[in-house]
Each structure stands twice: as C-alpha cells, then as structure tokens.
C-alpha cells in the first residue's frame, strides 16, 4: 500500500506539474475565484496568460481583487457583472456574463466569462472560470445590429414593407410593415404567394403578373407594379411593389425574389383627383373651342353678309333693287339677333349660380308638357306610353326639365315616320344606383354613323324638314350636362330613336 502510495504521490506531483504547465500553455484565460462566507474575494488561481493579458502589476496583484476587478470592468457593465456573480453564488449555478474591460491604454475589449460553481465544507464559493476575448465577435454583432436598426428605422420611416418570396415552396415572408398596409398581422393567414395574389383587384391582376413575368424573363432589371390590394376591412389599398430576383437555379429559373411594398393609396387618390380636375378642364376647354367654333361659323357669316349687302346697296340705282337689298339686310339682322340670343342662352346654362337645382317629380313635369302639347298630340294621333315610376324624383332645374320633355316630345312628333302613327314611350329605371330616363319613339330615326358626331351640335339638322332649326338638342344636351348628367342616343333609320338621360345622381 505504501509503495502504491509513493507511486501515487509521485504521479500526483507529476500530474499537478503537468496540469500546471498545461494551464499555463493553453491560450485561454483561466482563473479560480473563491468567495468566503463573509464575502471576501480571493483569486486562488491565475494562469500566466491572465497576467500578461491584463498587464497586472505587482501592486495590483497585492490589492483587493474586488477593487482590481471593479477598476477594470467598464462602469456601465459593473452592476450586471456583480449581480450575475452574486446570483451564481447564491444558486450555485454556472456564471456567465459578457462585459467590457478597459485596458491600460484606455481601449475597450469585450469578454465573456464562463464558470462552474461549487462550495466547499467551509462554505466558500469557488468559481472555476475561463475568460474569452470576444471583442471581434461583439464588434461584428454590434455592426450588424446597428445596420439592422438603421434599416429597420429606414423601413419604418418610409413605411415600406419587405417581402421575400421563395418560388420553390411558394411561401412568402411579409414584414410587419407590409402586413400593416392591409391592416393584417402575423396571425392572419397570408404566407403564400397565391394568398397574396387572391387579394389583388381583378382588373389589376394581369398587369401585375405580366410585370413579374417580364422580370423573370430578364426583360426588366427589376419588377415594379402598382395595383389595388384588398385590405382586411374590405377596402382596396394601392400598393407599389418593387422586387428583384436574387437567386436562380442552375437552369436559370428564379428561386427567390425579394422586394418592398409601399402604400401609395394617398398618392393614387391625389392622382385621381388631378385626373378628375383635368377632365373638367378639358371639358371646359372643349366648350370654349366649341364656342369659338360657333362664333367663327355663325357670327362671321352674318357680318360678312352685312358687308356685302351694304356694298350692293351702295351701288344700286333703282328703287326695286334697293328694297330687295334692305329686305335681305333685315333677314340678316334678325338671324344675327337670334344667334346672339342662342349664344347668351348657352353661356347662361353653364353659369350654375343662376340655375339652382330643386327636387322635381318626373311624372309631374312630363304631364305638364303633355298638357302643353295636347293639341299637337291630338292632331298627329300620337300614342303616349308613360312608364315613369310615380315617385321618381330628381334634383334638376325646373326650367331645364320642362325644356327637356318639351324638346324630346316635339322632336319625336316633328320627325315621326309618315307611314305610321307616332308612339312615344317614357320610362325610368335605376342603373348602378342612379336614375335613368329613357324616351323612345318610332319615328324616322337618324343615321348615327353619318350624323352621330354632329347630332348634338349647334344648328345641325338631319332631315329635310322646314321646321328644323338645329338648336333644341344642342341646348338640351348643354342643360343636362350643366346639371351633372349625360345623354346617350341609339337610333335606326326608319325604326326610331331612343334617348337615354343619365341623371348621374345617387338615389
């Protein structure tokens, strides 16, 4: 036994030396910390690396370890350092902590301590610790975190969402900002491409798919598309998507597309508003052009006639030809006054301040008109069919509604077919929530292919009728439009004409 003991002792000494040497050789920083029951700190072991690493001087080695450690650990990390140490001591659980150390030349290094804890019979707590320099890792981590924060901030500030589409699985990752646009959250089931596509407005889907396909086919350097997407509340949001294929397989097929989403609803609404304004401007501009056209055609011809007639009058010697001239001057003067009256009427129509809208019952106004025209209706044996709803009411100018019924009715009688009794049918219906008035006759009809363009023009007539003045439809159309409505026409020669008036007013 004794021999054994000697041998054991020998080996033991050898072993201790061996470990000692090993501990000094390995690059890690190893130390043993013992904390007594009355909280006295003792460094019971240090490997040589620690001495060189921290450049500990003799004075420090003799000082109280708590002071030395406190001094080295970055002030901001000190609390966390000692709290975690105390926790491990009390619970005898491994001690792990990351902290900064300020080196002699005021540099900051990151360290990680990893220690197992035991206690001995004297109630000392012993920490078997290794220290690792993690400055490089930590710096990289901080950089990544910084750039991620910056990126995240940029995305949040620009309200841009991120999506990441895996074409192999069909799965898409949508960032919170992307989902926010549609009032969705991570619990809403929208993690595949097909579920996203289902939300796209049917009218926008083709453009969207075409745009992606062009990018897949390498025709475009990236894909960009604006479309309406269904939000959770049932409304449509305008979403601008931009994306780029970042990975293709060996056959060149796209595998992964990453991109952004932006909510451009507000911009789109503004854009539409602008387009509406543009429409109004174009309409007003057309009206001005039309006015200039009327002036050019109708006023100039009268002034030209005046000039020529006065020339002729000057050169006429006999009484007879002078009188002839005067009679033509009178005709021209009357025609000019009439044209000016019509132009005045036209300008007034578009001055909406003069013509207020009132609630008017269609039936009341139709019956008034039929009463006024009762003699013509009787003389021409006109059959009237009234299918207008009893309570159909519109917001319109009373004088305009009167002139509307009067014009369409007298026109239908004026241009009735010689081979049959005129029949005029009035009906009302609701299309897309708006009231529509339809007036149909069985008269001569108009060749719309030939005359359609000028049907509602000023002084345009199409039939060989002496009473035709070509002002009624022109005025009526302008009146309807000034009330916000529109007019459509369908007609077949020898069959009849149907006018459809859209009041364009929600009911």
């Amino acid at each position, binding site marked *: 036994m004794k021999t054994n003991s000697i041998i054991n002792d020998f080996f033991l000494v050898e072993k201790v030396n061996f470990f000692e040497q090993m501990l000094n050789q390995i690059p890690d920083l190893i130390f043993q910390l013992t904390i007594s029951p009355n909280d006295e700190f003792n460094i019971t072991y240090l490997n040589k690396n620690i001495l060189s690493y921290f450049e500990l001087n003799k004075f420090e080695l003799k000082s109280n370890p708590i002071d030395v450690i406190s001094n080295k650990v970055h002030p901001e990390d000190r609390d966390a350092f000692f709290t975690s140490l105390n926790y491990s001591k009390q619970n005898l659980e491994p001690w792990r902590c990351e902290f900064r150390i300020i080196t002699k030349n005021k540099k900051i290094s990151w360290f990680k301590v990893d220690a197992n804890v035991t206690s001995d019979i004297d109630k000392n707590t012993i920490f078997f610790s290794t220290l690792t320099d993690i400055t490089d890792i930590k710096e990289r981590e901080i950089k990544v975190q910084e750039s991620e924060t910056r990126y995240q901030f940029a995305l949040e500030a620009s309200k841009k969402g991120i999506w990441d589409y895996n074409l192999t699985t069909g799965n898409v990752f949508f960032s919170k900002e992307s989902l926010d646009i549609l009032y969705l959250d991570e619990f809403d089931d929208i993690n595949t491409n097909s579920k996203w596509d289902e939300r796209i407005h049917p009218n926008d889907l083709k453009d969207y798919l075409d745009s992606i396909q062009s990018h897949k086919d390498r025709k475009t350097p990236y894909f960009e598309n604006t479309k309406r997407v269904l939000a959770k509340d049932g409304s449509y949001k305008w979403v601008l998507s931009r994306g780029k294929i970042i990975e293709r397989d060996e056959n060149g097929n796209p595998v992964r597309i990453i991109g952004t989403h932006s909510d451009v609803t507000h911009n789109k609404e503004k854009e539409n508003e602008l387009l509406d304004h543009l429409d109004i401007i174009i309409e007003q501009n057309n009206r001005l052009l039309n006015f*200039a*056209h009327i002036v*050019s*055609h*109708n006023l*100039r*011809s009268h002034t*030209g*006639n005046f*000039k*020529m*007639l006065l020339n*002729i009058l000057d*050169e006429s010697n006999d009484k007879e030809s002078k009188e*002839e001239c005067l009679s*033509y001057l009178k*005709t*021209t003067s009357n025609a000019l006054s009439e044209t000016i009256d019509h132009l005045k009427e036209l300008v007034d129509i578009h001055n909406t301040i003069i013509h207020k809208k009132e609630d008017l019952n269609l039936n009341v106004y139709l019956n008034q008109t039929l009463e006024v025209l009762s003699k013509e209706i009787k003389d021409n044996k006109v059959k009237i069919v009234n299918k207008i709803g009893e309570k159909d009411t519109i917001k319109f100018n009373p004088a305009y509604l009167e002139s509307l019924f009067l014009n369409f009715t007298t026109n239908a009688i004026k241009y009735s077919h010689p081979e049959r009794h005129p029949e005029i049918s009035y009906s009302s219906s609701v299309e897309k929530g708006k009231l529509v008035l339809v007036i149909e006759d069985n008269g001569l009809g108009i060749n719309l292919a*030939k005359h359609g363009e*000028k049907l509602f023009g000023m*002084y*345009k*007539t*199409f*039939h*060989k009728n002496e009473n*035709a003045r*070509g002002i009624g439809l022109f005025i009526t159309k302008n009146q309807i439009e000034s009330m916000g409505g529109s007019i459509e026409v369908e007609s077949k020669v020898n069959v009849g004409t149907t006018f459809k008036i859209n009041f364009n007013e929600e009911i």
Partner: protein
Amino acid sequence: MKKFNTIFVVDDDMVYHFIIKKLFSKCNIDVDTKYFFNGLEAIDELRDKVETDNIPDLILLDINMPVYDGWQFLEEFKKIKQKLTKEITVYLVSSSNDVTDLNKSKEYQDEVKKYYYKPMTQEDFETIFA
C-alpha cells in the same frame, strides 16, 4: 373660251345666294348657275346626272349646312368622281376661319382646289372667272 360654264352654288344661306347673283351680274359673268340649300340636294343632282354632259364645271361649296354639310358632300363626291364625264373644280367657301376646318380641307386636297373665306369679293370672282 370661258373657264366655267355651269356652276353649282351649295349654301344654306339665301342671303348668300342673293349676293352671289349680284356679283355675277356686276362682273358681267354669264354662266348657268344652280343653287342648292344643302349638300344632299347637290349630291342628289350630281348622282342623277353622273354619266351625262349636264354636270357643272365648278362647285362653290359651303361647309356648315343642314342635312349634309360640306364634308359629307365631299365624302359622297369622292365616290362618284371617277364616273364623271369631265373634271369638276370644287372651291370651299366658308365664313369659318377655324383652323380645324382649314386642316380638314387638306384631307380633301384631291377634291378641293381652294379655300375661300366669306364674304366673297369682286376680286375673288375676277380671279376665278378671268
């Protein structure tokens, strides 16, 4: 030899008809003139006489007229032009100084020889009939 013997005046304005008549007598131009009030009346007459010698040498055509305006007349005129026994000169005569009308007249440059503004003057007549 006279430049033009038979003339069609196509215009819905009877005052204009009167002025034209006066200009003819004043300039001592002796021609056979027919007056029409719209494009349809004129084209109907032409169609009736398309393969006879009884067609005009000159047409003074207004643009803005009821039933068939000047443009519609020209469309129809295009279709029968080939069948005519002699060439007919067409002058547009309009009070319109609208650019759209002037540009449109260029679409008919095979049919329309010249564009005159109303009122037509004695000088215009002298150039046409000299």
